[in-house]
Each structure stands twice: as C-alpha cells, then as structure tokens.
C-alpha cells in the first residue's frame, strides 16, 4: 500500500471510529432508533463535552505543519489560536467558554506538537497531505458550534420551484403610532373575543392572557368549568405579563405599565416609558416583510406595514 492509500484508509477508519464515538458517548445526538445508551460516568461526559476542542487544536497544529511550519512554530500557533478561540467565546456567540475546553485544547496542541512517537507534527514532510487537510478542516467545521440564522432572508429551494416572481417588486413602508398616542392607548373595555393567545398568567381566581400586540384579556376563573370573561385591556404592543399582589405588570411596545386589579375595574397605576427595545418588526413577526427604508424610531412605534408598489426597470 502506498503511503497515500494508507493515509486515506486511516482517514476513513478514523471517520468511522469518530462516528462510533458519537454513537456511544454522545448517543443522544444520533437517531433514537439505535438502541445504545449513554455512558453515565462523569469523566466520560467531560471527555465527550471537550472532545471537539481537543480535536480542533490537533487539527490546527497539523494544518500548520502541513503548510511547512516547524514543530515549535506549529506549537505556538496552535496554543495561541486555541486559547484565543476559546476566550473569544465569552464575547461572541460562537459557542460557550469552558475551562475544560481550554485545557483540552492545550493538551491537544501539546500532544500534536511534541509527542515524537506519534509523528504528528513532522515538518520534514512539507508537501501538503490532502487527506489530512480534508480531515482537519472538516473536523474543525463539524465540531464548531456556529449556528446560522434560523430565519434567513435569502430565497429557499421551495421558492425556486414556483414560476419566476413578477418584475414588480413589493416595497413596504412602516405605519407608525406616535408616542403620544401610545401613551394614551390604555383602555379598559368590555370583554371581546381574542384572535390568538400569547402569554398566560394565573393570579388567584383570575386567568389573564395576552393577545400578542393587541391587549390583555381578563377572565374570572373561580369556576374553571366556566371561565367568565371580565374585561379586555387595550394595550398595543403587549407581549409579556407578570403579576404580584393584584398588580399586573405588562409591556406595551417600549413602555412598562402597572395595572391595579381587584374588585374594582382595572386601573392604570403607572407607566414607565422607554424601557424596552424599540423593534420595528415586533408586530410583523410572522410575515416576511422587510422595510426598504430604515424605519425611523423618532416617529413612534411601528404598528404595521403598508406596501408601495414600485416597478423595477
């Protein structure tokens, strides 16, 4: 067998072993139909958790030597890079910082660079070993915890199956509610049907539920077999609820309000302004609308989108 074949065989074998490792030790990651159970020892779990970092750093050292760096250079490159990548996870959402990952990274670098019997970092072989590079890069990529945007705005495959969209592009501009209107918007009204339900809260005999971005419905739930609608609180931009001692705290776009509940009809106690993030897309969460011009925060809160048809050339 030529050396190339040997390395290829070893790569494939290693991939297989690695897969087996994930089946056995990180079993929950794979299909539940394979009846293998996780190893319950804490030591095994630490190893399982930090293994990617260990592999990462070995990969880096090998890449370095594949590109012709000497043993010592590869060692320092590996050390710096693995430490930097780990520490950077404190500031960037690429993954999580773990002391065990850091130590695993250093161990990997040390092993890769200095264990002579393993002959991992051998600068005499200056030519690139393609199986090694392939394996290093794919392992690093696979073990990274980068998560892509769950709601990407580029076209998906399903879009391509439809006929081409017309050349008229749909443009949207925001509709605003001024801050003055917002601060005047709280009203206690007679109960009405809800279009949908969001956050729910049980306070004593009351069942309080938010209709997202519309308001809050209050029910008398003293008899759960027959909940009775009591009031509807008009509260635009409401998403969250909390309550204590018969006071309901709710958000209304960028404001927080405190509402007194009890035997008397609900009463607004206090509004604290501008404490939540202004979000131009809060009301439009489920629709794939993007404003072509930047929404202007000083005009108010965005309560909808209006389309302005425009021909493209």
């Amino acid at each position, binding site marked *: 067998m030529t050396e190339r074949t040997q390395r290829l065989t*070893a*790569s494939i074998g*290693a991939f297989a072993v690695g897969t087996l490792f994930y089946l056995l030790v990180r079993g929950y990651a794979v299909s539940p139909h394979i009846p293998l159970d996780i190893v319950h020892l804490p030591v095994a779990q630490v190893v399982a958790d930090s293994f990617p970092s260990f592999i990462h750093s070995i990969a880096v050292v*090998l890449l370095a030597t594949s590109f012709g760096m000497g043993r010592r250079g590869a060692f320092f490159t590996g050390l710096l890079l693995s430490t930097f990548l780990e520490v950077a996870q404190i500031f960037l959402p690429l993954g999580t910082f773990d002391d065990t990952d850091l130590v695993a990274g250093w161990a990997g670098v040390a092993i890769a660079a200095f264990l002579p019997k393993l002959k991992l970092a051998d600068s005499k072989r200056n030519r690139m070993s393609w199986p090694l590079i392939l394996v290093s890069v794919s392992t690093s990529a696979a073990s990274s915890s980068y998560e892509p945007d769950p709601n990407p705005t580029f076209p998906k495959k399903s879009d391509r199956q439809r006929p081409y969209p017309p050349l008229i592009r749909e443009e949207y501009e925001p509709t605003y509610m001024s801050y003055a209107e917002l601060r005047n918007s709280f009203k206690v009204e007679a109960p009405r049907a809800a279009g949908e339900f969001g956050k729910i809260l*049980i306070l004593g005999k009351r*069942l309080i539920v938010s209709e997202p971005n519309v308001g809050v419905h209050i029910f008398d739930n003293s008899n759960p077999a027959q909940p009775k609608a009591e009031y509807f609180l008009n509260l635009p931009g409401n998403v969250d609820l909390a309550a204590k001692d018969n*006071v309901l*705290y709710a958000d209304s776009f960028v404001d927080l309000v405190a509402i007194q509940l009890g035997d008397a009809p609900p009463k607004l106690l206090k509004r604290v302004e501008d404490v939540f993030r202004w979000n131009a897309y809060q009301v439009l969460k489920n629709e794939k609308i993007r404003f072509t011009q930047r929404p202007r925060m000083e005009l108010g809160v965005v309560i909808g989108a209006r389309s302005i048809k425009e021909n493209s050339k």
Partner: protein
Amino acid sequence: MKILQRNSPAFLLAYCQLMLVSCGSEMLRSDSRGEENVGKTGSTSRFTILNEHLYTLSMGRIQSFKISDPKELRVDGAVRVAADIETITNDGAKLYVGAETAMYIYSVAIPALPELLGRHAHQQACDPVVTSGNFAFVTLRNQLGSSRCGRRTNTLEVIDISNPKRPQRVKEIQMHNPSGLGISKDRLFVCDGDAGLAEFDISNPTETQELSRARDEVCADVIALENTLVATSSDGISQYDLSEEKFGFLSRISAQK
C-alpha cells in the same frame, strides 16, 4: 502497526460529527413556587418577579424594577448579560437566564443589581424543563424549519440532578413532538404536538410511565395548578380537572380568527 504509527494524525483527528447538537437541559419553568400572591405563568418569558423586584430582559441586559409600591414603579438597575439571552425565570432564590448558547444563574443579594453566580455552557434556550425533587424533565423537539433547535429527535428525558454539576440522563421516552410540560404532585403532563396531551406517572422518576393521553388537546404549554391543569395554545385555553387522580376536561376558551 504501520498505519497506526505513521497515520496516527488521521486516526486521532477525524471524528466526523453527525449532528451539531449540544446538550439538552435548559431553562427552568417559571412558576414562582415559593412566592405568595405572584401570578403563575406557563412558558418562560422575559418577565419574572422575585421578592420586591420585577426583572425583565431587554437588549441583552436584565433590568430590575422596584415594585414594592406600584405607583412608584421605576427602573432600579440593569446588568449586562449577553447578546443572545431570551428567557428569565426564578426558583424563589436565584434568577435563571436562558440564552442561545448558555444558561446564566444570578443571585439577587443586591436586588437591584443581580450578580452572576455561574454559567452553564452547552445549553440552549430551546427546550422546556420542569424540576421535581432531584429530577428534571426536559422535552427535546424537532422544530421544523429551525436550524438552531431542529434535530432528529422528539423525546422526553428524565435527568437526575442530584449533582447539579453533572446531570445524568436516566430515562428517555420517545414522543411525537413534545413541547411544554408541567408537574402536579406525582403526575407530569406533556404537550405532544398533534398527538395530544400526555400524562405520565413520575412517582418513581426512573420508571416514568405514560398513564393516559388526551388526543384532541393540541397544546403548546401547560400550567399545573392545585387541582386543575391549564393547557394553552395560540388557538385556545383548555382546563382539566386533576383532583383525586382524575384527568377530566372542564372548559375551553377558543380564539376566533
């Protein structure tokens, strides 16, 4: 062996990861069990009340509001956490903030300025958790169309948390598409997508067994009260009677599209 010696880099290196999933256990349920007169919520949210303060999440920070006198409601302090925080809850003593990549635990020794106690890595704010004694129950769900929380598994996991630093999974139950869950005494209720609302016996958590199922109840989350169970979804709110080991339907408030 020649291969092992000369090709040990490949041997040590190439572990092909099939999935990009990290761990399971996520944020605790917000139910303010230890507090009187505090409203009980189902799913975790960006608001939580602990003692005399309301804590909210906004712009990557925890904001605290003093609520001892609601008429004097005001911002009391803010601490920066991380950019990807999503949910906050408490267990009567500490705050738990769930983020995309970790769970943060805060002390409220200085109520206006929560102080970071610890951070659990490798935990995503996707999967609901409830705890009872030394056990935690988590649902892992394949959320269609979500790359962050999409995974090839739909299970209920029972985890022994007697040693909080090293939780151990003790049982795994296949389900259809589980989401919110809640506990009432020795019974665990899990919303299982289109397969309805399932009831489990957790008197011996390592032997968790399904007791019954309400197939028509498509819910996203449940709130377990003294004697009733409230099952919620965006379309409606159903209530069930739990007194004396019953599991009987009581009422439903439906939304009107």
